[in-house]
């Protein structure tokens, strides 16, 4: 194939001239070969499945997607997902910023250990995360007496699902903000203080604007991860239809009940939603820099 483009028309004359050509243009063909291998791998591994889902969801037309999604049970599932994700994002934005701040600005015993613990949710299976909360708040859970006396239901209810999603998404905000805070030049804050700003003013006027982009990216990652959470909310929420069923739990049930068009449409919608979210903030960040 590449011999056609070869500047050396010696192919017909000498046997083994392909080898000669390959030997002389080693750099060129290795690079083309490596590029080809990588493109094929990425196309096979990542693009083919995505395209397959799109084709399958659109098989019966756009109308079929809309009708299959326009059911009260699905709408309530998506609503639950959205609601959980928003609450989780708000909590992590506030407390995640605080934690990142304390890690960068404070020195205290056990700091390295706790810093390592922040990454733990990354290593804990979502199923295990949900199960931990079940051990705490379930029927015979450690905190069951306390919860019962307060009259709140945590397991198999929204609070439990929010806690589970909080656990799974803990690292994102903190890990996004720590490097930004570390790179931030504290002389700016000192200057502000010198000019008479109080601590609060310094934070809002000087530190916060510097953190803004890290925060936006942290929020996006947290949001996308929360939207797609499955294992943890399945275990702690139980996936009760119409009550604790989220979008992912609906997809799981629909597949189980062989309600394929609904499952595929919901999967496509959920995938597109988090994709737009992440790509959008990526694009914003690139435009900014």
């Amino acid at each position, binding site marked *: 194939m590449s011999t056609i483009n070869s500047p050396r028309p010696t192919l017909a004359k000498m046997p083994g001239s392909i080898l000669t050509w390959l030997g002389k243009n080693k750099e060129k063909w290795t*690079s083309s070969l*490596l590029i080809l*291998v*990588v*493109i094929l791998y*990425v196309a096979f*591994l*990542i693009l083919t*499945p*995505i395209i*397959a*889902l799109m084709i399958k969801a659109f098989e019966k037309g756009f109308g079929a997607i809309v009708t299959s999604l326009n059911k009260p049970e699905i709408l309530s599932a998506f609503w639950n997902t959205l609601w959980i994700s928003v609450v989780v994002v708000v909590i992590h934005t506030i*407390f995640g910023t*605080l*934690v990142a*701040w*304390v890690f960068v600005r*404070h020195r205290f015993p056990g700091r390295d250990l706790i810093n*390592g*613990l*922040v*990454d*733990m*949710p990354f*290593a*804990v*299976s*979502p*199923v*295990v995360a*949900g*199960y*931990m*909360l079940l*051990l705490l708040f379930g029927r015979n859970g*450690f905190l069951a007496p306390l919860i019962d006396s307060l009259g709140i239901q945590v397991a198999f209810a929204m609070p439990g699902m929010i806690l589970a999603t*909080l*656990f799974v998404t*803990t690292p994102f905000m903190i890990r996004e903000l720590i490097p930004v805070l570390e790179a931030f030049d*504290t002389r700016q*804050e*000192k200057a502000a*203080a010198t000019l*008479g700003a109080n*601590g609060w003013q*310094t934070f809002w006027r000087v530190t916060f604007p510097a953190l803004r982009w890290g925060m936006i990216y942290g929020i996006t*990652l947290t949001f996308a991860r929360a939207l*797609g959470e*499955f294992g943890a909310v399945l*275990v702690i929420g139980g996936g009760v239809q119409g009550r604790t069923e989220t979008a*992912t739990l609906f997809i*799981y049930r629909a*597949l189980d009940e062989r309600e394929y068009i609904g499952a*595929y449409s919901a*999967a496509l919608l*959920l*995938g597109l939603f*988090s*994709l737009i979210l992440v*790509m959008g903030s990526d694009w914003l960040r690139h435009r900014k820099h």
Partner: protein
Amino acid sequence: MNLQTTLTPTGKEQVTPPPLGRWAVRSVALSYLAVILIIPLLVILQDGFRDGLSEFWRQITLPAAWDALKLTLWTSTVMTIINTIMGTLTAFVLVRYDFPGKTMLNGIIDLPLAIPTLVTGVMLVILFGPQEALGSWLKEQFDFAVMFAPPGIILALLFLTFPFVVRSVQPVLMELDRAQERAAATLGASGWTVFWRIILPPLTLPVITGALLSFARAIGEFGSIVIVAGNIPFRSQTAAVYVFGEVESENRLGASAVSIVMVAIAFGLLMFANYLRNRSKTKREIL
């Protein structure tokens, strides 16, 4: 306490908050982490070891549990090997070569991070499910089952961990000084020699870090695997799916024991990866 304090016109220490506020901020941050992360972890440790070490060991070595752990470990290992090779190659191609569609390829690498893993599972079922064109063709022609079998698990894991090695190697490769390679080539080293002797050594740490991250991430994967592999004990049941089954059937001890093993392996590897990453970072800063 320092120059800045004396410069403050009001004479108050303002950038560093007063000890009380400092203490308050710190305790709020740490109790937040304790509530979200540490208490659940302690509870599961307590629960798994509540009947002693021998009972813990018995639960892990139950045939179904042991098989699930073995399946998880070997599929994750196979995935890690493929992902390490292909991820390093992808990073190399992205950093060193120019070709049409390069920016797009670079963007596609991160897609798996944005797609819910359950959706990944659905995608793979559409491609390789026994009723689908590709899946049934593979089954008939080669008697090769992807779904409800280890290949499906490995494929799902490859999909979701693809960014890790690439994104770990890429920045280091970008910073490499190419003068050394040219010098080696001038001295007569072949392409392979340059790759093995000059390019690869500084990449070792980031490659291993990326591989460890992939492995740690793969151990606990549930959403895509439960769709792709189903829940067939001794054949396609991974540790996470096993734990789910034990929770459903209210075998608390079994669920806790296997959970602890999974968390210990994944968390240990993650800590090791963090340690390596810090080491390679400080090494780069020194050089």
